[in-house]
């Protein structure tokens, strides 16, 4: 199969509003078979609503979703065996043991008793829950519950796996474990991943889609996005004085409203492929004005820089 062209998931003109709020506003994109698709956006951007629409858990106001060429019918009988969903909130059966709930979930997808048992054993092992297999869900730590939450989405070997914030609340060891597992899935399973952890998204995703206020802002590979929007380096400068009044007016080549410039009271961040020219101008102005330089750094642009550049620094919730 040609991995690069085969479409696993197609979203066309998807829209959903809650009263006056347009949570999803005409989204269209495709997810290729077997890729890990990073689905990013700030809080309230419409990620979870979009995932629910893609899973058929919500009825869209407009647009269509199709999986492997077949339209997703919201509320269609018989379930969507091709889909696995690990929701953002932890959704487990608190009074069943880890093993029992994995086996039960398998049985709900018509796995035989033996197959469900084998799959449960495999997933408990894979997610480091083997020692906790006979512990009730409610007695697990938050991190363990999160791992179980992901494992429950995998009992039926779905073709498309939706992971909504899978790494929230995980310790570093668990993050590595989950990351490695997701990477291991990529060959055979299409993964749609939402996360606020840009580093994680950058490490895992084949392609990234950034949305805000229900609209698609950008969709490309991480390198492609950085090349288009975050080309060059990031210059970070921090001074003790108010940077807008005491420094910026004295750097001729730097406008506060220029693309790639982010400001707080004392700090400046600039994404530019002309960092080598602008930084000496800044430092010269600092010296000439007798300002107290607290921090200066030049580094390569990351996905987070692009994300902030696209969605802004303002808090959403």
């Amino acid at each position: 199969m040609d991995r690069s062209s085969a479409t696993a998931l197609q979203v066309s003109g998807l829209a959903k509003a809650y009263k006056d709020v347009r949570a999803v506003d005409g989204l269209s994109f495709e997810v290729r078979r077997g890729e890990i698709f990073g689905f990013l956006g700030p809080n309230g951007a419409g990620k979870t609503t979009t995932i629910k629409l893609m899973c058929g858990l919500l009825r869209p106001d407009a647009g269509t979703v199709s999986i492997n060429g077949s339209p997703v019918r919201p509320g269609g009988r018989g379930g969507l065996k091709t889909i696995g969903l690990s929701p953002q909130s932890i959704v487990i059966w608190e009074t069943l043991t880890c093993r029992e709930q994995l086996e039960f979930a398998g049985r709900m997808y018509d796995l035989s008793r033996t197959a469900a048992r084998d799959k449960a054993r495999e997933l408990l092992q894979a997610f480091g829950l083997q020692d906790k297999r006979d512990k009730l869900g409610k007695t697990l730590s938050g991190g363990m519950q999160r791992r179980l939450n992901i494992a429950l989405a995998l009992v039926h070997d779905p073709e498309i796996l939706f992971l909504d914030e899978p790494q929230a609340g995980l310790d570093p060891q668990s993050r590595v474990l989950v990351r490695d597992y997701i990477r291991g899935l990529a060959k055979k399973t299409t993964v749609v991943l939402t996360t606020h952890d840009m580093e994680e998204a950058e490490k895992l995703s084949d392609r990234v889609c950034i949305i805000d206020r229900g609209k698609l802002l950008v969709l490309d590979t991480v390198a492609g996005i950085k090349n288009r929007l975050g080309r060059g380096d990031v210059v970070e400068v921090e001074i003790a004085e108010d940077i807008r009044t005491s420094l910026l007016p004295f750097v001729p080549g730097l406008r506060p409203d220029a693309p790639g410039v982010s400001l707080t009271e004392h700090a400046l961040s600039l994404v530019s492929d002309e960092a080598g020219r602008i930084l000496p101008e800044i430092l010269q102005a600092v010296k000439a004005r007798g300002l107290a330089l607290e921090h200066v750094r030049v580094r390569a642009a990351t996905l987070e820089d692009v994300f902030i550049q696209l969605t802004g620094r303002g808090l959403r919730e």
Partner: protein
Amino acid sequence: MRIPAIFLKTFRENIREWKILVLALVFGPFFVYLMYFYYGAASPSYNLIVLDKDQAVSRADGPPLHVGKDVREKWAEAKYPDGKAIFKVRSVDSREEGRRLIENREADLLVVFPPDFSRSILGYRLRTETAISPLKNIGDPSSVRFMVASSFADYISYAAVAAAAGIELPEAVEFQGIGSGKSPSDFDLYVPALLVLAIIMVLFTAAASIIKEVDKGTITRLVLSKLRPFDFLTAVSLNQVLIGIAALVLTYASAVSVGYRGRGSLLLILLVGALALLSVIAISVIVAAWMRTIFELLTVGVFPFFILMFFSESMFALPRITLIPLGGHSLYVNDILPTALAVKAFNKILNFGAGLGQVSFEIAGIAVLTVLYFAVGLWLFHRRHLRPR
């Protein structure tokens, strides 16, 4: 194949959430012992108190006439068919004392004999008087025991006074009880309703089993799987029938342990019980359709619980308001609650030894209502919790 898996899962959850389970199981027995404590040991005899001011009068042709004393003796001798006394008779010295006893519910009926009671009867017999001085019955009109005690007491006193006054009563009335023939205590009369009360408690465990999936979000996992609402509700219902049957048996066993003896077949009780349980589960699906959290169930959900409890006559009898006559039976307003029909069926089976044929109307009624409520519940549950919004 999914139904056994859901059944096993729900069974495990019920066992592990043992507090709700224990509540459902002990609710009926608890009320049995509570009612027995208050009513069970009480005698079926009515407490009759007498303020006897009647003075004996001498007669030329015989011993002195003291009808008040005679009537009191007749009351004391009156017995039910099983030999138990109908009245416990005692005297008071003043109307105030009698009134206090009535108000404290230590007595059911106070009868006041006027001072000239015997004199007026003798005069009536000798045609020198045209009327007999009346007795006064005093009691709490809201008390059923006052009404019943008055009826019995009046019947006996009429006969005694008529004999003393030389009046020939136009007819004699003979009392014949149906059922076991023994005089039931108030507790005995409560037992059928207490069995239904145990069944109604399943409303909480059944609704909780369903709402929990919505409350915790696990309904999403079930919706995404191949599970059908029918599979889920069938498995939950089977579990709840088991819990309900256990509660029913425990409640009945508790009643038996304090001396209650029902007359009908235990199998028939279980059959009616199982059907009534299914109907309560069907109602709990409707309740679950309107709720989203366990908290809502334990607060707002109390309302349908009380509706079932009161209008099924589980606590006290209600006036009969006929809805429609149906095949030689009357369908009353509260019969739209299957538990009301269950109370009637249990009453017929336990107190009158009714067989299957004699409770077939109630059984058919419960079955029809169960199907109806399940259909409504399934539709509502699907619409509110399973359908994409």
